[in-house]
């Protein structure tokens, strides 16, 4: 049996982890922390036979959540414990690994259980994969986002089991004590249908005015590469990349961006990619659907002008 840590029953990545676990053909139990019973019962639709609800404080406390999973695993003896490839999924599973002194593989695309387990996992934000052996039981891993598509199952309701973990003060010490609301203005980068992004080729903070103009005309968001945030031309919140935002717009318009792996890790979810770059050898063209060869300072204003012409404004 495989035990899956469900961070949030309605979150796609938790559902993907459940789908991934079902594919292992061993039966799936789920563990949720402090979730309502109705949510737990509903996990049956994702192939869960038993949903275990840990009665622990509601505020997120990674070590306490991990301790709940460690205690449950000690009772159930699963062959594997899986989590979603989210920030909290990785954090909680890493705490489980630290508490049990077991190896843990983050961001797995596939696994073959056994002694050792064989995994294929993501490196470099998806630019490289690694085959690895995981020596230890149970197998601990997190599922890379979008390794599988979340899919339902015809199973009925999940049986619900409540348990109360024994938590120490140390387990509860690190917890979320308040949620500060974000102050956001304009179109959010991760939700935008169109993202117009500038790289080193923009040349300066002021150079972004043409990028901003085109983004505004398309009702889109402005993005940039790491070279731009490191130079201080744009805030880090605008960065698309392995260490910035991961985006999935309908079209990504990359202007003066060479296409380093660091950047591509953030925009590979885009449905279409239009690259505007004077260097026909730039690696971004290997990942682009459309290209305009030229200087963005000439091409981008021309596109904006053409849009106005078409709209008659």
């Amino acid at each position, binding site marked *: 049996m495989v035990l899956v840590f469900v961070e949030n029953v309605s979150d796609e990545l938790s559902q993907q982890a459940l789908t991934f676990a079902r594919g292992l053909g061993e039966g799936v139990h789920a563990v949720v922390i402090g979730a309502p019973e109705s949510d737990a019962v509903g996990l049956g639709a994702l192939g869960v036979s038993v949903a275990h609800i840990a009665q622990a404080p509601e505020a*997120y406390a990674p070590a306490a959540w991990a301790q709940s999973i460690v205690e449950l695993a000690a009772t159930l003896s699963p062959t594997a414990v899986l989590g979603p490839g989210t920030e909290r999924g*990785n*954090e909680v599973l890493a*705490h489980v*690994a*630290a*508490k049990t002194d077991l*190896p*843990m593989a*983050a*961001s797995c695309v596939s696994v073959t259980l056994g002694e*050792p387990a064989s995994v294929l996992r*993501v*490196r*470099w934000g*998806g*630019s*490289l994969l*690694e*085959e*690895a*052996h*995981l020596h*230890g039981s149970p197998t601990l891993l997190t599922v890379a986002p979008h390794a599988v598509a979340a899919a339902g199952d015809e199973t009925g309701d999940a049986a619900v089991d409540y348990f109360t973990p024994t938590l120490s003060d140390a387990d509860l*010490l*690190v*917890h979320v004590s308040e*949620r*500060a609301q*974000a102050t956001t203005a304009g179109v959010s980068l991760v939700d935008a*249908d169109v993202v117009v992004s500038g790289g080193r080729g923009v040349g300066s903070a002021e150079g972004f005015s043409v990028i901003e103009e085109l983004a505004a005309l*398309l009702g889109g968001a402005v993005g940039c590469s*790491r070279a731009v*945030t490191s130079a201080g031309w744009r805030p*880090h919140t605008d*960065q698309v990349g*392995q*260490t910035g935002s991961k985006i999935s717009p309908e*079209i990504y318009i990359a202007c003066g961006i*060479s296409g380093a*792996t*660091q950047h591509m890790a953030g925009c*590979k979810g885009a449905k*279409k990619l239009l*690259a505007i770059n004077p260097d026909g050898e*730039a690696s971004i063209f*290997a*990942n*682009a659907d*459309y*290209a*305009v060869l*030229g*200087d963005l300072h*000439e*091409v981008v204003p*021309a*596109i904006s*002008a*053409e849009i106005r012409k078409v709209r008659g404004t």
Partner: protein
Amino acid sequence: MNVLVCVKRVPLTGGKIVLTTDEQAIQTRHLGFTISPHEECGAEEAVRLIEQQGGSSTVLTLGPPEAEEQLRDVMAIGVDRAIHLVTDGSEWDPQATAAAIVDAVQAEPEPYDLILFGNESADSGNYQVAIRVASSLGMPCVTGVKAISLQDGTLRCEQEVTGGRDVYLVPAPAVVTVKEGLNLPRYPSVPGRLRAKRKPVLAATPARPDSRLEMVRLVLPPGSGKQVEILGRGPEGAPAVVAVLQELGLL
């Protein structure tokens, strides 16, 4: 206060990754090296905290002899000293890495008030070394932090989440993993680089235990398979771009 920042030497991969013939590593013959982006912000934060609070900052790496270059780079922005856990360049798994760091920290004459890591390394992305170190040392650990402040021995750490920021309050000593965006790291100055050459590097050569997360080989993912359509050269390409946007229903 005493602050330790842990960093990892990684190649600057550029646009295309090429593997060595034995598939055990990235071909780095023509590449430069750096530290993970998150860690650059960790190093900058260590320097800022010591500038504000007084005390001493140390940078630690586990890596081949060449990783001294990264230790000097970090000292060039103002970190005072370095610890180099020297390896033969082979892969160390997260458990072995954490154990070696714990041993090095415990061997230090003065305890650390704060140990900083990047949230995850740019190359292997294991998301666990810091948590394992904290667990072994009995210290609290906050991850993915984008703002840190210290007041009366309490660290206030802010983490970006969907819809806002989660705030954690933890007592020092603590382990904190940071993300890029925490600050804008400074560039090293020429005098900074000269000073860094004279700063002390404490070297040790820990024994490498067997890997329990054992890398077998690296695999390049399949290419995008995309065939790029050239819409034009220079401003003359604009009408074709607009036609594509119309086709996609975005105008």
